[in-house]
């Protein structure tokens, strides 16, 4: 049923055109329902990908191909595999959440706000679906424009600084990606990403290309030490912006490493895996301590995001050590799948955490931890959700936060004991900064009059958080549906990285 429809094109252009329709419609009573309608249809269509997906093959599915710029043989070429499909669904889901989250909160230029997120959703889905390098790059950059405006227009007091920093940081990273793609075209004679996977490159070429990829995607992930834009952007962004930043844009970094760095430059990835592993462990341990010291709720969660994304990059790059230590490679599968599960789970948990902060901020207009205390007394239902998501963030077994981290730590044991040891500190650090924050905000006596006057969740907020809670719990208890769809793609990736191109 779904194979005849150009499903990916629909998923890309429906939200983009829907966003334009919202923009043209302007601010009136149809703005919000129309945005919700577009985002929900997008989500339903994206579920069509899951239904029609053949998880037995690593080949690209739902492939679409059309000539776009014939002079340079640049094609409008789309397709998905087990890596991109879950991320597309995550994008579609997050967009619905963002529209719902902005329902009452955004009163200023509503149509522009909704349109920006819808257009951004289309562009991000396109990033995950693009199989042509230039097409990928165009969408990769184009999505900066709406996010730049979202943070700059609806953000906090220091929003201009934050959004320009965000834009220039990511642009700085991505221009190196562009150079790498142009060089690969020079070698491969085509802009197809799959053709890039097959080119032979000398170690020196690979190292330069790898570094270009690393700069581009490390800024997005973000990896220590190029993470400094993230706390600023998160703190200043409106809740919706934070959700999209944490849930999707960071994932594009991890996805880029999977799609470009590992398969195109496997030998350089192996030669420089110490660098990525070192940076990842620094993120996990050092940023964990940094998070502990934060007094701003959003900043704390932003740093916790960086630490969690450290697991993603760690999982992707310990595979070379695992290959060196064992012949079976089952540990390597565990590592990459763990990284992917961590990405998706973090998408849900970080989104939920930012929404919780948003709920508080809408009522109190402050994000300082010290302004709160004893919120549980006045908002018991919200408190329940907040504690649940905090537990998930800390990696409580039974939640999705546990699955990915556990898989990566388990795999890390096969690489090197000390990697696993350092990675496992997150179980302590993560619990420390998250639960300490919860203690200070939620529990104890009611701290002041403002807290005493808080009202609990309304129906909209309740269902928004409840849907996330259900997914986090379901993924934690039964992660198999997600690991199954990506299994063939993971195995294929591992054969690609284990074959030297020299």
């Amino acid at each position, binding site marked *: 049923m779904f194979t005849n429809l150009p499903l990916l094109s629909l998923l890309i252009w429906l939200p983009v055109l829907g966003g334009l329709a919202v923009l043209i419609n302007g601010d009136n009573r149809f703005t919000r329902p129309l945005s919700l309608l577009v985002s929900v249809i997008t989500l339903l269509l994206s579920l069509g990908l899951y239904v029609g997906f053949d998880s037995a093959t690593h080949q690209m599915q739902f492939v679409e191909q059309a000539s776009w710029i014939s*002079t340079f043989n640049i094609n409008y070429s789309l397709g998905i595999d087990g890596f991109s499909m879950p991320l597309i669904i995550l994008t579609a889901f997050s967009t619905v959440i963002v529209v719902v989250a902005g329902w009452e909160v955004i009163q200023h230029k509503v149509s522009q706000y909704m349109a920006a997120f819808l257009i951004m959703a289309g562009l991000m889905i396109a990033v995950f679906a693009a199989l042509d390098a230039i097409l990928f790059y*165009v969408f990769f950059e184009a999505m900066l424009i709406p996010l730049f405006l979202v943070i700059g227009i609806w953000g906090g007091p220091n929003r201009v600084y934050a959004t320009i920093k965000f834009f220039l940081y990511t642009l700085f990273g991505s221009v190196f990606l562009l*150079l790498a793609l142009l060089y690969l075209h020079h070698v491969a004679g085509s802009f197809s990403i799959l053709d890039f996977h097959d080119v032979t490159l000398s170690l020196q070429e690979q190292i330069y290309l790898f570094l270009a990829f690393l700069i581009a995607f490390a800024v997005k992930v973000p990896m220590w030490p190029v993470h400094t834009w993230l706390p600023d952007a998160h703190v200043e962004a409106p809740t919706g912006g934070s959700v999209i930043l944490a849930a999707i844009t960071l994932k594009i970094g991890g996805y880029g490493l999977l799609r470009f760095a590992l398969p195109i430059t496997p030998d350089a990835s192996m030669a420089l895996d110490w660098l990525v592993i070192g940076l990842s462990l620094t993120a996990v341990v050092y940023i964990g301590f940094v998070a502990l010291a934060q007094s701003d709720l959003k900043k704390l969660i932003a740093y916790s995001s960086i630490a969690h994304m450290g697991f993603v990059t760690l999982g992707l790059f310990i595979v070379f050590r695992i290959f060196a230590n064992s012949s079976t490679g089952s540990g390597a599968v565990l590592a990459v799948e763990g990284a992917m599960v961590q990405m998706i789970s973090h998408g849900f948990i970080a989104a939920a955490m930012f929404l919780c902060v948003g709920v508080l901020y809408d009522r109190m207009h402050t994000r300082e931890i010290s302004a709160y205390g004893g919120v549980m007394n006045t908002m018991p239902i919200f408190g329940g959700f907040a504690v649940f998501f905090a537990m998930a963030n800390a990696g409580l077994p039974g939640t999705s936060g546990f699955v990915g981290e556990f898989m990566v730590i388990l795999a890390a044991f096969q690489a090197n004991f000390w990697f696993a040891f350092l990675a496992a500190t997150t179980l302590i650090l993560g619990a420390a900064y998250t639960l300490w924050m919860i203690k200070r905000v939620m529990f104890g006596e009611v701290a002041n009059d403002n807290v005493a006057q808080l009202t609990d969740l309304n129906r909209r907020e309740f269902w928004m958080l409840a849907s996330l809670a259900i997914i986090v719990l379901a993924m934690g208890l039964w992660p198999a549906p997600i690991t199954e769809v990506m299994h063939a793609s993971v195995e294929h990736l591992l054969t690609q990285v284990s074959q030297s191109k020299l």
Partner: protein
Amino acid sequence: MTFEVVNMSFALPEMFMLAMACTILLAVAFLGEKGASTAYGLSQLTLAITAILIYQSLGKAGLAFDGTYIKDAFSDVLKIAICIINIAVLLYSTSYLKARGLFKGEYYVLAIFSTLGMMIMVSAAHFLTIYLGLELMSLCMYAMVAMHRDSMVSTEAAMKYFILGAIASGMLLYGMSIIYGVTGSLEIAPIAQAIQSGGLDNTVLSFGLVFLVIGIGFKLGAVPFHMWLPDVYHGAPTAVTLFIATAPKIAAFAMAIRLLVDGLGDVHQHWQGMLIMLSVLSMILGNVVAIAQTNLKRMLAYSTISHVGFILLGILSGSQEGYAASMFYALVYALMSLGAFGMVILMSRQGFEADNIDDYKGLSSRNPWYALMMLILMFSMAGIPPLVGFYAKLTVIKSIVDINLISVAIVAVLMSVIGAFYYLRIIKVMYFDKPEQQQALQAPTDIKLMISANALTVFALGLFPGSLLALCASVFSL
């Protein structure tokens, strides 16, 4: 005899334009003060008919006037582009001129003569033709800059422009005379043959080449020959800045191709190094200095310098693909620059020039649609996809990556990041700052429609750049 007739027909559009320019001049002389509107109407008609004449003769190619004049696909495409852009320029400038008491027939006479000069430059197959076209174009522009004769800045700008332009022309002529001395010809094709057959004194040839490159650098505004550009752009009335900043760049690009590629293509290795210097310096200086500007016209002037650096990248690559990329860039640049200066005109009114960046504060609250148009133009100039400025940068950078000049490519991309900063600042001012004034736009409808069409073209070309890229590639693949 028939041969002669065919020859003449190759220059028919230019002859038509010359006749019309003289007619307009006479009309202005006889009608006096009332002649301005007539001159405006006739000028638009002239440009439109000239473009149609060129369009109808597409596909024919050959030399005319004893090998001094060439008609080929390259010249046809660029001449049509020049005509279309100048139609838009005249459309933008009319209300600006009226509001400042500058609405006189002379502006249009000079504009048409200058356009004629550009067309001659584009079609030149002989050093003298190039020089004649260049001087016709430049002399008209000097006079246009000085049109606002009571304004100190305008007069100063015109003076600078004239003196530096004269030096540049002198350099160019000197270079031409040296090359004539070496090759024994002033015609471009025989010069190329003479160089190809070898046996020439390479030192003297390179010496002449240096002066040619200096002349081209002056006319394009490449560092270190850029000094006139910010002052002239800033000092000239915006309508004139708009004229100078768009079509003449296309003509200067054509001159560079005629001289360096058609004429001296075989000593590519000699001029490549010089162009790398000009290009890298232009990109660095243009982008870095633009950050410090508070005047939008000056900022756009420095941004022009950096764009010139990018245009040079394609030429220096020495490949057909690179030339096509440069041509694409020059056309796209003219289109974006047209929109940006058009926006300054749109925002301005009597007694208010709208040329300070602060004048754009809160534009998105006052005029969301025009703020969006400016956003498109600025992101396009910054080279952010999916706007056409990105493909311009992409193709020129691709052409130098393909010849393995990776270090130059790295400079280019880093400079485009630095460049993004000052374009973002305009967007920041428009979208994130509170408006300081609430005065409504006073621009007439034709300008409003034109600016929308202009920015939307930039957007549409960004989504579907294929046909224009293919057109540029086809011009050079003959």
